[in-house]
């Protein structure tokens, strides 16, 4: 029941751009469905960007992950999986390396297809070669470097990313990354002192980078939303600021009701 509403547009339209996410009412397909905007094969071979979840589009200047780029996600978190989710759902293969702790159930909830994931938990000291090999086969590679790469290794990997037209998402920092995303604030909702449970997390994600991405952008997101997916957070809810967790639930439920009514 929650799936249909997660990608609905914001209740109060933000003052900034993003005309694309305002359209879904006229589509027969759910806006989450990859075919609604991308024909399955062509999206992955023809276009210059890999698609991302609608909630993340406004953060990225190209509206997606530019092919041939390195994206630093500032450490392992659900954000890395969220970045890969839409492309994976649209048919891209996603390799995860150096992250034995990656939660596959969370990845599936975020929208990745576990059937198109390759896990190389321990790439060992020869990890640059492993990454290069994986980039040959997979459009998306999630990497946590076991050690700090030298400038030479970094340039070699970047050249490989450009050559194969994939996207390397680094769970950590990467000098010279085209895009940098960082979770700056987080608040868990649904849990109290001895009651409730973790239901959803509101995070503030800041994106900056080089070139077109140089101007920092910040958005509040549900990461994860109560059903495990990723959604844009209602700005009105954010401005209420610090409130009790129980109020969070109340505010969130009115938020969902509002969205179900409108979307």
């Amino acid at each position: 029941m929650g799936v249909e509403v997660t990608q609905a547009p914001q209740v109060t339209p933000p003052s900034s751009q993003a005309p694309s996410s305002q359209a879904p009412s006229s589509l027969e397909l759910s806006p989450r469905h990859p075919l609604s905007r991308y024909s399955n094969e062509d999206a992955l071979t023809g276009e210059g960007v890999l698609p991302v979840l609608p909630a993340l589009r406004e953060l990225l200047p190209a509206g997606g992950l530019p092919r041939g780029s390195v994206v630093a996600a500032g450490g392992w978190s659900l954000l890395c999986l969220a970045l890969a989710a839409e492309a994976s759902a649209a048919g891209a293969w996603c390799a995860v390396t150096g992250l034995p702790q990656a939660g596959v159930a969370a990845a599936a909830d975020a929208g990745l297809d576990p059937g198109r994931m390759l896990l190389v938990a321990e790439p060992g000291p020869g990890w640059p070669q492993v990454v290069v090999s994986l980039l040959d086969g997979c459009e998306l590679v999630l990497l946590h470097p076991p050690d700090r790469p030298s400038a030479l290794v970094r340039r070699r990997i970047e050249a490989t990313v450009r050559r194969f037209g994939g996207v390397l998402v680094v769970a950590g920092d990467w000098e010279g990354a085209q895009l940098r995303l960082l979770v700056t604030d987080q608040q868990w909702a649904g849990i109290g002192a001895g009651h409730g449970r973790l239901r959803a997390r509101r995070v503030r994600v800041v994106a900056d980078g080089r070139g077109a991405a140089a101007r920092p952008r910040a958005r509040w997101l549900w990461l994860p939303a109560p059903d495990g997916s990723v959604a844009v957070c209602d700005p009105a809810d954010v401005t209420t600021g610090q409130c009790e967790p129980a109020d969070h639930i109340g505010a969130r439920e009115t938020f969902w009701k509002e969205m179900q009514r409108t979307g």
Partner: protein
Amino acid sequence: MTAASNSPQRVLVIWCPDWGPGADPGAGPDAGAFEQVVTAVEEFSPRVEVVRPGACAIGARGPARYFGGEETLAEKIASAVAGQGHPCQVGVADGLFAAQLAAQAAGSPGPVLVVGPGETPAFLAPHPVSVLGDPELADLLTRLGVRTLGEFAALPATAAAARFGTQGAIGHRLARGLDPRPLVPRPPAADLSASAEFDPPAGQAEPVAFTAKALAEQMHAGLAARGLACVRVQVQVICEDGQEIARLWRHDGLLSALAVAERVRWQLAGWRTARDARGEGGTDAPGDDGVTAGGVTLLRLVPDQLVRATGRQLGLWGDAVVSDRVARAALRVQAMLGHGSVTRPVLSGGRGPADQVTLVPFGDAADPALPPDRPWPGRIPAPAPATVYPFPLPASVLDESGNPVTVTGRALVSAAPARLSACGGPWLAITSWAGPWPVAERWWRPASARRKARFQLVAEDGSAWLAVLSGGQWLIEARYE
């Protein structure tokens, strides 16, 4: 009763009890160590067939003539293998099946038992039907009152085939002292072998074993196109220094591509151990499973002893959607790091975060360890944690007064958790928490029974943890981040 044209050739089997009598190749000492035994036997006959680690066979006729009789040959082989430090028993009979039984029956007067030509049916007769290695057939026969191979062999062959099917017909042939299947009478016209060259020579065993997997698939495809399957496969390896090692492998049943690759790896590892023992390849580091002294330049798989394919499905990829490009990348990483290093996740059932995913090595069939479509009461609630530690981290959780937080047998928490230290890290104040959620799994099986209580803890820095208290010990199972 037995047609002369059908009578099987004389076979000599060397059986080392160290490796156990079962067909499980993983049991006993290292399968590669058996290579030493095979090398010792090779001094007597160049064509050694490895039935499984622990048992190998040679054709007895030629060597027996040369060494002056089957008894003499068998005793010489027994003492040569015993010289390698492995006790062994040797049996000679008509056909592989009877020779294996003879080798296992040997031992009371000496390590050798020779069943004379034509005496094989009489030798087999008192054995119970269970030695046929088919529990279902043996069970059925016993219930019908047929307890020994002799009684089974006395039944008419056509009646046995009609009543017990293909397996029964094979068993009946074995019981009569014949080969299990009639061999394909003519050699295949086409060359069905598959080979690959390595340039530069491969110094490590892994890339060779992975090439073997691809070669085996190629070979199987060629055989399948002709409606054939191989029961034995000869693995030939030619090294940089011109040395050649060849080995025949048998599988009980037909070989899969992975099974072939595994045998190639054993062969290379065992060969290297043998080299070290002889002091030839002394420069390589211990523990390195490579073929260091002279890399491998050629690997060839030759199918041997062809039978009609009776409809076994050859191993395919777990799922047809793997494109060539992805498969190539995964195989390349597997060649670098080993078969188990590249995995595909399969969502499965279970209550804990680590149970909910089964990691299947790339190329293997994907089956979840626990069925995912069950309710699994007590499983951790959504959303799923983004970080699931492969090995839970030790932690300490204290209450306001500094005492460790405990949970009673009735799932009551001793006090509200106030401070958390994960894996020896700094102490963090706990701002909110939920639990305990008791889990009692497999209480009906004491060996694997687990009783634990799960908590969700949110610390002052906003980090959220899934902690579990089991046997008085706090562990961090997962982190929500």
